[in-house]
């Protein structure tokens, strides 16, 4: 499977996570010509196999709400478009506020959500129990709920898109690392890889948390920062929790998967960059468990089954980076997805493919283009609702 089928491609995609694979799928569907995805690990070894499976449409910014509204429709269709079942279950997302400022903030979120035609609701603390009866309301001042948000099982998403890419003739080379970006006359001509050189006039940087490293291989400085986030799963329980629950004050999030495990995380500070690998820290186990037990005291005796970590790919304004790099023609970005690249991938990949094919996208360049960071007068709009 890893022997290259050819040397020359129209598009070479760096990173075989959900973003790279979905981008390959969209390009192949659009008839973009031969496409190769280069992945240095195994399928799902990056953040796409390490995330919490959350899918939400509640955001600070209306653009993100709109993109996610579209993505939710795609996820609902996913099982019928691709052969696998991601078990996208619309149990809703419950955001909890513990201070007047957070209540105000959630009010603004719900306004953005409702202005996009979605049924976001502001709740009194007592209303929370209707959706999550196991919570302790101690210190909770308000909440929002959107019932069409939900959770999915990420792995079948990766398998489904991977199989579709292969069925369309796309090549996915596993265990092949990109070690250099080759340019001639100021434009991309291909890549150097551990599996030999690859020729392609267009390359797409879909390397997730490692996208900054990959951009630097091309000599491009970018503001993307890899931040490590930890997460854990408990032993499986019979269904007791429908929505994803997020507490704004400390960023705690958790939901119950189809298999019954409670999966959730919370951010503790770690040095940035990808050098640490993916260990688990005592600080996380302690902070996370305390936070969870405070919110759901009955979970105290439930066992943690496993803990792991993965990388977010953060940008200064919280918006992803989609499009061609103005400094290096042929080098496209599909990165900067922070903690929500999985849920966005059906929608974001359409825009990446359009950009690669030279078509216009509906994305505001001031918010999404790679060039925005080069502009000293860039927009101050930001997507700040990051947890979960």
């Amino acid at each position, binding site marked *: *499977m890893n022997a290259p089928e050819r040397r020359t491609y129209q598009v070479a995609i760096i990173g075989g996570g959900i973003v790279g694979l979905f981008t390959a799928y969209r390009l192949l569907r659009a008839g973009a010509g031969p496409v190769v995805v280069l992945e240095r690990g195994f399928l799902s070894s990056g953040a796409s196999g390490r995330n919490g499976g959350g899918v939400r449409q509640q955001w600070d910014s209306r653009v993100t709400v709109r993109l996610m509204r579209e993505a939710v429709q795609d996820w609902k269709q996913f099982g019928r478009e691709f052969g696998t079942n991601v078990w996208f279950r619309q149990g809703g997302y419950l955001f909890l506020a513990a201070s007047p400022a957070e209540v105000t903030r959630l009010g603004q979120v719900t306004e953005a959500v409702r202005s996009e035609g979605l049924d976001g609701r502001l709740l009194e603390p007592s209303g929370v129990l209707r959706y999550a009866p196991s919570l302790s309301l101690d210190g909770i001042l308000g909440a929002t709920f959107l019932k069409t948000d939900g959770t999915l099982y990420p792995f079948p998403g990766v398998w489904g898109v991977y199989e579709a890419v292969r069925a369309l003739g796309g090549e996915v080379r596993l265990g092949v690392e990109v070690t250099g970006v080759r340019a001639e006359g100021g434009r991309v001509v291909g890549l150097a890889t551990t599996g030999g050189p690859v020729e392609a006039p267009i390359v797409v940087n879909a390397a997730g948390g490692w996208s900054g490293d990959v951009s630097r291989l091309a000599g491009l400085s970018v503001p993307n920062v890899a931040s490590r986030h930890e997460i854990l799963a408990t032993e499986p*329980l019979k*269904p007791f929790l429908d929505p994803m629950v997020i507490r704004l004050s400390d960023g705690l999030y958790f939901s119950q998967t189809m298999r019954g495990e409670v999966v959730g995380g919370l951010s503790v500070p770690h040095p940035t960059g990808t050098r640490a690998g993916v260990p688990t820290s*005592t600080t996380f186990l302690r902070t996370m468990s305390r936070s969870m037990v405070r919110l759901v005291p009955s*979970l105290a005796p439930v066992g943690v089954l496993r803990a792991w970590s993965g990388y977010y790919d953060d940008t200064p304004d919280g918006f992803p980076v989609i499009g061609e790099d103005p400094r290096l023609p042929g080098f496209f970005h599909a990165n900067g997805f922070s903690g929500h690249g999985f849920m966005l991938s059906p929608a974001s990949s359409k825009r990446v493919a359009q950009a690669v094919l030279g078509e216009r996208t509906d994305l505001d360049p001031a918010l999404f283009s790679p060039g925005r960071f080069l502009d000293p007068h860039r927009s101050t709009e930001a997507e700040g609702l990051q947890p979960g």
Partner: protein
Amino acid sequence: MEPVLVPGPTAGRPDLRRLPPRTRSTRYHRPRAPFCGVGYCTNCLVRVNGVPNVRSCRYDAAPGDVMTVENAWPSARFDILGVFDVLFPHGIDTLRGFRRPAFAVPWYQRVVRRLAGTGAFPTPSLPPRPAPGRSMETDVLVLGAGTAGRAAVETFVAEGVRPLVLEREPVPTPIAGAECLGRTTAVFLPPPRESGPRPFELIASVSDGSAIDVRARTVVVAVGGYDASLWFAGSDRPGVVTAEGAERLHPAVRPDFSHAVVFGGGPRAFQILERFGAQTDAVVAPGSIDPDVARKASELDIPLFPRTLLLAAVGRRAVRGVRLARRGGDQPPFRLEADAVILAHRRLPHPQLFFQAGAQMEWRPGVGAYGPVVGGAGATTVPGLFAAGESAGAASPDRARESGIAAATSALAPGPGSRPTPSPPSDEHNELEGYYQELLTAGPGPGKVVICPCEDVLLGELLEATERGYRGIEVIKRYTGVGTGLCQGRYCLPDALLVLALREHRTPREVGYITQRPPVVPTPLGAFAGLPDEVEATP
């Protein structure tokens, strides 16, 4: 829900007569009964005083405790949800099924969600609160207080060093000169890469539901091994037990046996014959049978079946017989009556502590499993980390003692010591590779072959994944769910690795290492919540 407990006094060790005679599996609600006896498998899970998923074989019951078997309705003996097992003889495809029609999807989700999960949400009688934990720092830590661990401890003590000893089992008598905590299971938290020299960091789970954050500069790992599982049709049936399962569970736990088939022809089978000879009807082995096993069997008039495939355990609610076939494929299968199958064919060292501590691992074809690269005196590739006992290759008590002394001696020696080098790659195959190859060709059966009993993953699902082109244990684990259950893959992944190697036409080591994620043993959220603040891990 049936109460299974009649409370009474206990003496330091769980009273195994309280184990539930019957439980049900998660997905297909197949009948199960205690299997391993050592607290890894999921076959003895009960709800205790409102707390779900308690392994009754590790639980010290107190008078007045209420234990019930969960995940069965109306009872584990007659579980109506068991129809799913009968209705879907080839399993339920949750990866590709249940996608259409669109309007039915939410309904499917409701049903499938209800079938998953083991215990219900906790409703403890006492208000739960974080169990106060603590942090400990020590120069020398010894993990495991078995023969090798004790020998290491004695060596340290003789040199004036006071080690901390953590042991998973109860430690009824104190160890002179050492601080020893029984019923405490420790795991390493993998160090961040490129973190530079620093003490080892471990998390220990204590049976009282608390946790300890441990720092140590030198660690001797002497945690022994365990008896492996085997797959065949019905290998998850009540009555199939590992060798240590038989040793620990008999005769307290039903189903009791008096006509057992012992599977294995080596030293472990010999020990089982010594103990259960009177209850054994046959010895079946994947390859040849050791002369002393043969001698013992002939003394007891027990027939031998060397080079024989175990195709199936017959019987739905419990083992009533086995289907066997001579290897070589030219003779028809035959049946033996039996009321138990005791798996005594291989013992595996526990590898995960070494892996988590960052030691280089190597494939050991003899045992068919991974182990740390170990030098003569127990040194691993990580400075300060030593192996003793079974993980250092010791197969007898004498050797275990020697290896414990050797590891402690080299840990005490000044200077960095010599780094071991991996053994050169060899063409040697594990006996089970050829065995499983033939079994795959012959086709085990009839009935489901459950390769991962915790999650009810079928052998067929593994084979299907490889047919679709998925390769490598990491991907197959995520694709099928094999190894993601409560035993953390101890019973399924070693066999899955051999099957994948056969299917992928690669060596097991190319199929990949089996990573186990912390905490490796389920540890209550309340235990982590109770860890003290002072210890900050971030370098």
